[in-house]
């Protein structure tokens, strides 16, 4: 009888605890979201200031407008009958009209906040110079076209890299001190060279000398007609970049994972698990991998961020039509709206990833209590 009562008491306590923890989680999510929003706003505003050269890009554009109008006027035979004075006035009024059309007459400080608002609401506007492949000036269309290829390449590459270095690290930590272990450690410094460095050699060997694989790009020219062969062609174009990406990071990745697992497998609770008579696989799963899960998830999420952002030089070397190459083109051409737009997208993706990470972290690690409410 008493047992039943205490059981009921326990279950109400549990329910109350669950309710209060739900409230705590909601509050935490809200606070965390707002904090991240402030961070994103500041980041985007800084990007706007920098991409506009603190307003100097406006002066450059005004100069360009004046130059093109004076050339236009000089080339127009109608203007030959005007006096110098009239010509100057006409030129001035045409320049002013165009400046007003583009909104350049208002102070930059005011416009920068408009840009900020437009950026944050994803009203990305029109590119100054760049065009999408379909001929659109809409930044949204340009970005939309480029995001896909980056994701395909980077997601495949980074996921292969992440899981293979995790698995290799686990194998090495089991065979600590073996020949394979020593070999991988010896190879780890090769990761100090970036992926595009290996990429150039791969292109040289496999494309230029052997002629097995394409030099770059995403599909063969002309693109195959059927979808199947188009996919096959893309896969073939992905081999070299992904090989370069994986090779450039695998050894150091596996090395750091291995060390990490070795440190965790010397924890007292791992020896305890052994004393308890668990078999090696259970020990590895519950006592090594499980406690390291938060750290592994963190590095996985950071990998995901790296995967969105692409790699500027890497995509340029492989002529891959992704975000990285777009960024490079936009920077070369001072195409402010495109630069700002990519920054905004990155900022949002980064914030979303961190937001997600915070929540997952609290779920997998009981030591991280959401909302700081102390012990429950």
């Amino acid at each position, binding site marked *: 009888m008493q047992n039943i009562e205490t059981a009921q008491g326990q279950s109400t306590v549990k329910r109350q605890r669950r309710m209060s923890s739900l409230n705590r989680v909601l509050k935490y999510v809200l606070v965390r979201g707002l904090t991240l929003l402030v961070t994103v706003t500041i980041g985007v505003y800084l990007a706007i200031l920098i991409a506009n050269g603190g307003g100097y890009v406006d002066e450059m554009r005004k100069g360009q407008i004046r130059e093109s109008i004076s050339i236009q006027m000089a080339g127009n035979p109608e203007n030959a009958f005007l006096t110098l004075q009239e010509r100057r006035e006409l030129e001035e009024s045409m320049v002013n009209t165009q400046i007003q059309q583009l909104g350049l007459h208002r102070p930059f400080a005011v416009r920068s906040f408009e840009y900020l608002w437009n950026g944050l609401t994803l009203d990305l506007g029109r590119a100054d110079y760049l065009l999408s492949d379909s001929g659109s000036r809409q930044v949204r269309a340009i970005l939309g076209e480029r995001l896909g290829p980056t994701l395909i390449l980077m997601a495949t590459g980074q996921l292969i890299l992440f899981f293979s270095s995790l698995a290799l690290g686990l194998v090495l930590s089991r065979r600590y001190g073996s020949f394979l272990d020593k070999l991988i450690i010896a190879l780890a410094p090769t990761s100090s060279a970036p992926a595009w460095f290996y990429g150039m050699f791969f292109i040289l060997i496999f494309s230029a000398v052997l002629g097995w694989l394409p030099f770059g790009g995403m599909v063969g020219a002309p693109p195959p007609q059927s979808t199947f062969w188009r996919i096959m062609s893309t896969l073939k174009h992905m081999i070299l970049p992904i090989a370069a990406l994986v090779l450039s990071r695998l050894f150091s990745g596996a090395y750091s994972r291995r060390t990490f697992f070795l440190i965790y497998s010397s924890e007292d609770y791992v*020896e305890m698990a052994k*004393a308890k008579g*668990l078999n090696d696989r259970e020990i590895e799963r*519950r006592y090594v991998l499980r406690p390291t899960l938060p750290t592994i998830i963190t590095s996985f999420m950071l990998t995901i961020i790296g995967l969105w952002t692409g790699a500027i030089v890497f995509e340029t070397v492989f002529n891959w039509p992704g975000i990285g190459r777009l960024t490079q083109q936009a920077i070369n051409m001072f195409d402010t709206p495109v630069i700002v737009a990519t920054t905004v997208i990155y900022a949002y993706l980064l914030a979303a990833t961190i937001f997600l990470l915070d929540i997952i972290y609290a779920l997998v690690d009981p030591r991280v209590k959401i909302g700081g409410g102390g012990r429950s």
Partner: protein
Amino acid sequence: MSDKKVMLDVKNLKLYFRTQSGPVQAVDDVSFQLKAGHTLAVVGESGCGKTSLAKAVLRLLPRNIMTYSGSIVFDGVDIMKYDDERFRREIRWSNIASVPQASMNSLNPVVRIEDQLIEPLLIHEKISRQQARTRVAEVFEIVGLPVDFLQRYPFELSGGMRQRAIIAMALASNPKLVVLDEPSSALDLLSQANLMNVLKKIKQEINTTFILITHDIGTASELADEIAVMYAGKMVEYASAQYFYTDAHHPYSQKLMASVPTLREDKELEFIPGQPPSLINPPTGCRFAARCEKKFEKCSMQPNTTHLGNGATVQCWLFDETGEVKHA
């Protein structure tokens, strides 16, 4: 007392570690017998091989093992002959459980205590989760922890509670032998006293054989039926606790006893000058000789184990052959 069967019979146990500067003879030729239901306290200075002895019995060996030999007859079977898999399945936890030295850190930080405690039961015994839970709740009460703490995570418990949780885990599977490796060393005095009371209560209620490893001779006196003194990898004296505290034989044991404060006597505490020898290339003779006040010529050779009756043994030339003190 003496008609009880022998639970653990260790003969010529050696455990050497490989290091850069040579082999470390952490446990060197140790032999002893422990009867069922008795508690053996292994005492000695830090680094004398107490913990290595425990690890050797539990077969929890580090990677740099060089020599691991001798025989460990446990409940009539030589478990040294078991391969690792059989040892894991038949001996670990179901028969020999342990409370390790750092038992505060021996709980997986991200798994609830209950799940960790029922784990060995689920592996070694064919019982349901519910039965395992009931059993764990029972032992939790024995060690004096509130049952609802089972639902908590280790970080939500104090050090002393975690230690008791580990003891509960060790008791849950009804092992024949429990090795307690300095169970109280990391605790404050109050928690130590508390833990000792728990252990005493367990000893009275459950008929389990214990090996208690400690450097605290006072603590050992509360629980021990037998006392083993280790010095530099050797077991220099093994005696019934009844006699040991008043009549220790080995000069080292005598010095050790003289260093322990007692309540009712007013005595000057002594210390032993010098350091224990390195376990890498230890001296060929008696390892205590360099610090011993009663040293004589023979001490440059390794002393034999002398049986003094009542199962007591001592490794000292003073007692050789006749069992009597030659140079008092």
